[in-house]
């Protein structure tokens, strides 16, 4: 409950200005709260120059009328002028969920100069697109993106919010969930609707994929999840699809940020990024020398894949730490994973065992990597890779 300290309140009207719900106004020189309308968003509390407002949160204060939250939101991500593939994957999944909930699918798109992407979102499944196009959104900051999304969600009350479990999504979506005081399930690989109560069933791996858990958010809304890229399938665009585009002008108070972006650098040296690659060729200790790692690059290029590494290969200085797959690196789940000269320490396995097809090439037939592989080749990578490269080139008529 929002409380006004009538001793401190000077009736200045700042709170009345800031409230998006007309839930607080000045009467007879003092702020009065309309508790039926107030959503406890706290904007007025932060803005009160006298510190006269306070949110009292009691047990059950968040217990919300669940039926007043409607619709599915997909938080679109735009990187380097293109929509992230996970955004399109989420739109396809949302259409399935929406059919069970009889709900609308709304895409939320933030950035600068992104208007042209609205059509694409509609073609891929959005019924509505909320566009926030502003120069302050040209570069991503957790504070501004988070504040705007949280503010929109408070006003529009979606039942479900889905975002990509990308570096960006996993960074600012937790902020949004915390502001909204609701649950958030990280890095989901499965989403479904429970038939009896229409709850969102969110399945995610834990312990590096050794355990799977299905999670619900029973009494809080929205139900929020970040979803691992590449697990769900996008629909082909349907240029016949129609949708509504709504332009949102963000309030100034939401645009303040304390983190300044000095420089953004792209490093695209090793092919497509690891978490979105269909094919990954990983180099481990078995390459013995830096020059041999070229074989992994050659194979990756040939397959239009990307190169990954183990801790050993990073420590040896052959590949940069951003290519490291495993517990303290990146978790990947491509269609094809080729582990070359990788022994298969558990710390590496947990980062790649979700891959569809796993191929391992190792000298040691007893190496633990073979426990999780689909196809195993026993031999020296320096001998096998050149043969494999030649064979694929022949296959492709090169």
């Amino acid at each position, binding site marked *: 409950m929002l409380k006004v300290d009538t001793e401190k309140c000077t009736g200045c009207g700042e709170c009345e200005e800031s409230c998006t719900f007309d839930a607080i106004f000045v009467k007879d020189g003092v702020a009065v709260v309309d508790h039926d309308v107030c959503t406890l968003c706290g904007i007025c509390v932060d803005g009160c120059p006298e510190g006269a407002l306070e949110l009292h*949160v*009691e*047990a059950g204060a968040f217990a919300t009328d669940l039926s007043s939250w409607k619709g599915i939101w997909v938080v679109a991500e735009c990187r*380097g002028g293109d929509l992230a593939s996970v955004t399109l994957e989420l739109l396809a999944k949302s259409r399935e969920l929406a059919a069970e909930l009889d709900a609308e699918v709304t895409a939320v798109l933030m950035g600068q100069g992104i208007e042209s992407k609205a059509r694409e979102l509609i073609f891929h499944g959005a019924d509505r697109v909320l566009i926030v196009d502003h120069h302050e959104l040209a570069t991503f900051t*957790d*504070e501004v993106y988070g504040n705007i999304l949280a503010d929109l969600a408070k006003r529009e009350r979606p039942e479900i919010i889905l975002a990509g479990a990308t*570096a960006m999504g*996993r*960074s*600012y979506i*937790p*902020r949004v*969930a*915390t502001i909204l*005081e609701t*649950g*958030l*399930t*990280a890095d989901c690989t499965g989403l479904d609707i429970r038939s009896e109560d229409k709850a969102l069933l969110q399945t995610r*791996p*834990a*312990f*590096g994929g050794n*355990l*799977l*858990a*299905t999670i*619900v*958010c*029973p*009494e809080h809304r929205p139900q929020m999840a970040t979803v691992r890229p590449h697990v769900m399938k996008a629909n082909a665009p349907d240029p016949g699809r129609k949708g509504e585009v709504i332009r949102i002008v963000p309030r100034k108070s939401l645009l303040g940020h*304390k983190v*300044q*972006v000095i*420089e*953004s*650098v*792209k490093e*695209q040296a090793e092919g497509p990024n690891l978490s979105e690659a269909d094919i990954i060729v990983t180099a481990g200790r078995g390459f013995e020398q830096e020059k041999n790692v070229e074989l992994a690059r050659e194979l990756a290029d040939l397959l239009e894949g990307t190169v990954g590494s183990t801790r050993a290969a990073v420590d040896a200085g052959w590949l940069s*730490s951003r290519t*490291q797959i495993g*517990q*303290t*690196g990146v978790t990947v789940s491509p*269609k094809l994973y080729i582990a070359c000269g990788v022994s298969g320490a*558990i710390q590496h396995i*947990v980062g790649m065992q979700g891959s569809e*097809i796993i191929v391992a090439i190792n000298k040691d*037939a007893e190496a633990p990597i*073979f426990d999780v592989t*689909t*196809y*195993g*080749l026993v031999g020296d990578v320096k*001998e096998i890779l050149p*043969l*494999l490269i030649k*064979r*694929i080139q022949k*296959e492709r008529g090169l």
Partner: protein
Amino acid sequence: MNIVVCIKQVPNAKTVRYDTEKGTLVREGVEAIINPFDFHALEAGLHLKDAYGGEVTVLSMGPPQAENALRESLSLGADKGVLLSDRAFAGADTLATTYTLAKAIEKLGPVDLVLCGKQAIDGDTAQVGPGLAARLGLPYVTCVNALSVMDDEKTIQVRRINEDGYDILELEMPALLTVLASINTPRLPSLKGKMMARKTEIPIWDAEGIGAKPSMVGLTGSATRVVSTWVPTFEARREMFGGSAEEQVDALVSRLKAAGIL
């Protein structure tokens, strides 16, 4: 510089076994370690303390035995350890965890920098850092792998890694960062540190001690509920090719063609 490092005690992946029948992990015989990312957060804090002075406080929420993780941190050079332990904290999701940690940090007093690992290797959520920053009203940056303090000793410059490259960002303290393993190489405990760790008293704070509302901690304060867990099984899909290198390569190519990849 007052630095708080949040750490979590987690099961060592090497010693964990899984019960495929019950769909849970077998807790017996599991070694408890400091979450690997948190070692790097601690090292980042100790490194700043070495350069700029101040104090490093290590904070952990967990069962009583999580005290071991705090003692280990003290042996590495942390000045203080605080254990948040209370039955009421049990079953906390990230919403309840960030609330509890925030209440404890508020009790610790003014802080310049809060450091967390990027994620814990058991839950893998990566949500506590950003959520805690939101609770504390601090600016934050996740996935940091380089950190330096500017001449004014108030502004920090950090490098944030993303899928396509990296960003260089500046922010003023107080702030919160979550760090990657590539940010540094953690030090080893010193003899002096080990002695200090044995002697230092580690206070245990409960819900009442940090002024936490019972409705907002542990399972009661959690928005999410686990419905079921299971252990994924790898169907017997392993095929080892035999024969010469050429024969093995041929076998692989034919399988990949059948799978529609080649």
